[in-house]
């Protein structure tokens, strides 16, 4: 099967990026090397092609009612220009997606979905829409929408070279609609790296111009392009989960650090299943760990306490910032408290690790 290409694909090829298949997309995993791109993001700024992610638009008088029912987060107090992370669940309480909700006006919202879950999100939300016959329209605008992230402590200064709007006073998880040069865009102060930074949405045909401009004006600030490799180490250090890897449709928000996404006071799809689960408490929990013994625990490695198998590693890597191996594991709840020692099977041996609180890394404000 041919891989899908983002509007920025040719630029990655010219930059000699190593391209991989990510959920059916031909994406750059690294340009130079992962560690270098990681440090660039933490100390200066990096630019990421995120065009593969999905964007859905919900418009109409009952758009709010549709999302309020479909999503776990209470949107009643969401202000114009605010971004809210939320979960989209099935009836069993399993996570279809973790997505962000952009409130553009009282009857117009944009949902930003994971690349691999967009179709499932669309079908779930349109199913509710058909059933409830709410007066609103759901549209997949992914193909015409380009997205790039600029992340790192210098991203505001770099972006300021191309935008007249006030970024200084834009709070975290808020967005503005403004021009980048003369290109209409949505700019939100958010990201997936644990650094200050922005996610930029613009017409797919023009996202390349913004990329070029930021690459050019960012040079003096040390800006470099970064691939999915660095994106993965950055998000893991920041304690952020990856959909499809750290959670699946079998996982509920009560088992992963997403309890805060649930607003129990309102009704939403999946709520009754979660209420049932809440009575007994989940049997498994996703936690962070750091390696004490030698080795790097990777996705799929088994976790033990003595001889008893207690779970599995869902994400694991070498942390360039902390200079040690870290990861996330899905464990029996009895073994999930911080400071608990666990053993991870790495090839023929077992290496010791310790459960720690998330995040692994928090930037200084």
């Amino acid at each position: 099967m041919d891989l899908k290409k983002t509007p920025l694909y040719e630029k990655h090829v010219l930059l000699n990026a190593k391209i991989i298949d990510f959920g059916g997309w031909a994406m750059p995993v690294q340009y130079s090397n992962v560690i270098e791109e990681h440090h660039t993001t933490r100390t200066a700024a990096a630019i990421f092609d995120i065009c593969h992610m999905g964007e859905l638009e919900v418009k109409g008088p009952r758009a709010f009612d549709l999302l309020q029912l479909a999503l776990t987060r209470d949107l009643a107090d969401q202000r114009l220009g605010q971004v809210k992370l939320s979960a989209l669940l099935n009836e069993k309480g399993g996570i279809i997606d973790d997505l962000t909700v952009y409130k553009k006006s009282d009857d117009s919202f944009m949902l930003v979905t994971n690349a691999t879950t967009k179709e499932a999100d669309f079908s779930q939300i349109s199913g509710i829409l058909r059933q409830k016959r709410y007066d609103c329209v759901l549209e997949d605008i992914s193909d015409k929408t380009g997205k790039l992230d600029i992340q790192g402590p210098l991203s505001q200064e770099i972006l300021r070279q191309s935008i007249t709007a006030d970024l200084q006073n834009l709070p975290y998880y808020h967005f503005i609609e403004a021009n980048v040069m003369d290109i209409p865009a949505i700019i939100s102060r958010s990201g997936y790296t644990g650094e200050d930074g922005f996610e930029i949405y613009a017409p797919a045909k023009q996202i390349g111009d913004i990329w070029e401009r930021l690459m050019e004006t960012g040079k003096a600030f040390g800006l470099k392009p970064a691939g999915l490799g660095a994106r993965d180490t950055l998000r893991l250090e920041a304690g952020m989960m990856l959909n499809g890897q750290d959670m699946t449709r079998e996982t509920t928000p009560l088992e992963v650090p997403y309890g805060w996404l649930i607003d129990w006071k309102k009704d939403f799809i999946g709520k009754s299943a979660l209420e049932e689960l809440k009575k007994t408490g989940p049997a498994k929990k996703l936690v962070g760990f750091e390696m004490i013994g030698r080795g790097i625990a990777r996705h799929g490695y088994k976790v033990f306490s003595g001889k008893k198998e207690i779970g599995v590693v869902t994400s694991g890597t070498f942390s360039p910032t902390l200079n040690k191996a870290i990861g996330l594991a899905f464990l029996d709840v009895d073994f999930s408290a911080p400071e608990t020692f666990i053993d991870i099977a790495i090839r023929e041996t077992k290496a010791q690790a310790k459960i720690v609180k998330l995040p692994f890394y928090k930037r200084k404000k």
Partner: protein
Amino acid sequence: MSKPNPADRLYSKDHEWLKEHGDGTATIGITDYAQEMLTDIVFVELPKIGKKVKQGEAMAVVESVKSVSEVYAPASGEITKTNTALEETPELINKDAFGEGWIAEIKLADVSEIKTLLDAAAYEKLIQEEKR
């Protein structure tokens, strides 16, 4: 660009090098081309001393941030020495794959076996073909 492949040693198709010492022992490592493909090496699992390996068998593991790769024994024999410096500084392989980044020393089980390996010119040809 990778460094030139020294002519004083032999190469496997899996990108390991072997330098015979003339006394039935040899040093083993991965090539500069291999480290370039792996990029930032962050972990090396060395073989145990005394371990007997067969030609083509996995004898060590080299990991980058994103990948886990096996190092195959370019010849059969017994591991007599390992480069323990790699435990603390695995990036030695990135810096000097043909020198300080060596992985192990081996007592060859059958010296004639190394005739199956490539010389520097043949190995260079192989990587040029791979790059294409």
